[in-house]
């Protein structure tokens, strides 16, 4: 039986569960999948693993990747997984290289696609800041390890499995990282959770308030290209793209965004795209359902007025 091990990041359980789909693309339909969970969750996980290793850390959870690595290494020695998948979150991206080094195996970072060629697995990731895609094969005995970009293997139906819970004790010798304090930020929102995103770029730098207004009217959120983030107009948390977030909304309205490959990288999975640009041949327009040729600010004024008019007549 082919075995796959998946690390579940307690802060990103959704993205972690998506890795089951990544495993399916890697191994075909028949494989056994084990999840590792190192923290208590607010909601129980759905039964989508064959086995779930629950490591009993103290309530605050585990902050040191080195500790989780010990547990996962021991599991691998016992069960010999063919693949180990880790979500490419902040914690996951510290965990994966540590584990790969100790297992002496190949690791590919932040993958966005998996394909099989003559039964050989190839994983694909953006390189050189997203300007090139690199296709990578594993050499040696394995296991195949990868960190997987969140929100990429989204929305696939997950098969129900007879999830057996395996309680485990954490390693006792303690890690070297201590958590001293956690201060909540005045956060706005997570753009990945929004079905509608109204997004502004260099060509809409002066219109961000109107972008927020339109987003509100459509029941969505505002997001931005890196240009506006670097200019200090929008916070980094709402940046879309390679060094920002990968989003998968139903509707993405791009105002004055050129569509550099690093930006496109983040919106490939948007269902509908409307782009507004004075240049109707900007790269992003080729991805769009509707291209509006013209000034973003003017378009915003008109569309906002049209929607308000409609709502008042209701």
């Amino acid at each position, binding site marked *: 039986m082919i075995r796959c091990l998946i690390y579940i990041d307690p*802060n990103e359980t959704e993205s972690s569960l998506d890795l089951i789909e990544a495993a399916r693309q890697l191994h075909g339909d028949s494989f056994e999948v084990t999840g590792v969970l190192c923290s208590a969750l607010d909601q129980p996980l759905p039964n989508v693993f064959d086995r779930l290793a629950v490591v009993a850390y103290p309530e605050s959870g585990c902050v*040191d*990747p*080195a500790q989780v*690595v010990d547990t996962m290494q021991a599991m691998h020695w016992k069960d010999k997984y063919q693949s180990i998948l880790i979500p490419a979150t902040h914690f996951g*991206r*510290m965990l*994966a*290289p*540590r584990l790969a080094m*100790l297992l*002496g195996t*190949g*690791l*590919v*970072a932040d993958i966005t696609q998996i394909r099989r060629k003559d039964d050989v697995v*190839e994983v694909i990731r953006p*390189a*050189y*800041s997203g*300007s*090139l*895609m*690199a*296709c*990578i*094969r*594993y050499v040696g005995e394995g296991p195949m390890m990868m960190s997987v970009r969140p929100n990429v293997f989204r929305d696939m139906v997950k098969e129900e499995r007879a999830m057996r819970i395996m309680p485990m004790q954490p390693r006792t010798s303690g890690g*070297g*990282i201590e*958590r*001293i304090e*956690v*201060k*909540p*930020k005045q*956060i706005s929102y*997570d753009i990945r959770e929004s079905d*509608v995103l109204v997004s502004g770029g260099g060509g809409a730098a002066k219109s961000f308030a109107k972008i927020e207004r339109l987003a509100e*009217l459509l029941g969505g959120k505002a997001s931005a290209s890196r240009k506006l983030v670097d200019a200090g107009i929008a916070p980094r948390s709402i940046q879309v793209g390679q060094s920002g977030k990968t989003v998968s909304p*139903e*509707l993405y309205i791009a105002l004055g965004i050129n569509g550099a490959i690093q930006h496109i990288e983040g919106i490939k999975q948007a269902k509908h795209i*409307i782009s507004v640009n004075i240049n109707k041949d900007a*790269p992003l*327009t*080729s*991805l*769009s*359902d*509707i*291209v*509006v*040729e*013209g*000034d*973003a600010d003017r378009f915003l004024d*008109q*569309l906002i007025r*049209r929607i308000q008019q*409609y709502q008042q007549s209701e």
Partner: protein
Amino acid sequence: MKLICLVKFVPDVGSAKYDFERHTLIRDSAHLQLNPDDVCAVAFALKIKARHPETIVEAVTMASARVTPNMEDLLRIGVDCGVILSDPAFAGSDTFATTRVLGRYLSRQDFSYLLTGTHSIDGDTSHIPAQLGALLNLSQMSGVQKIDESLLGQGIARFDVESEQEITTYQMRKPCILSLTRESGYKLPYASRANLEKDFSAQIQVVSNADLGFLPEEVGLTGSKTRVVETYVKRLEQREQRTVRADESGVEYVFRFLTDKGFI
């Protein structure tokens, strides 16, 4: 206190040219620059040195010897010595093999803190710092911002890591690995006028495999666990599409689209 900074000189991706026939970056056309996250790591080290002049700052890179002038630029702004790990045997190393090389050199050095970047803009794997943590058995943290300077001398690294929802303060004991991000905002100092003219080549040490003693199959392409088999420039998938103008009828078209699809 000794601080070792791991640095990588990367092509300026914005201005680099592509060989569309062979789908590779034309490396020589690309001007090399210090990776942005690593800039902050070096800048932080130099800030400590400015306050505590007895601090020794060393910069280490694994690269071809053609980065020597870039390394000299770091010496000009106050880094005490530059080490280039360079050997034909190391060529083609993936992150696993690179970590082995860096790790063997570092295992023979004495240092309080290893400062690195979190990501590089070319490879962008973030593997090296955490892999070194595993190999050298040191704690490592990525995404480091705002390090508490007053505690470093006592062997304690206390720093902030910012995520979407919160700012978390962590603490580790020396020796350990701190991987900074460009959001930390540490800025490099300028070179003094005297240093602009000076020849720093004597402070640069090139370390080859004769010094490190790897078998050929342990490093380079043959020592790697992953192999890039193809690179390609992505093509955008064309959608069925309609172009309208930003006038009354165009806005009406968009408005209809939004109501038809249930967004309004």
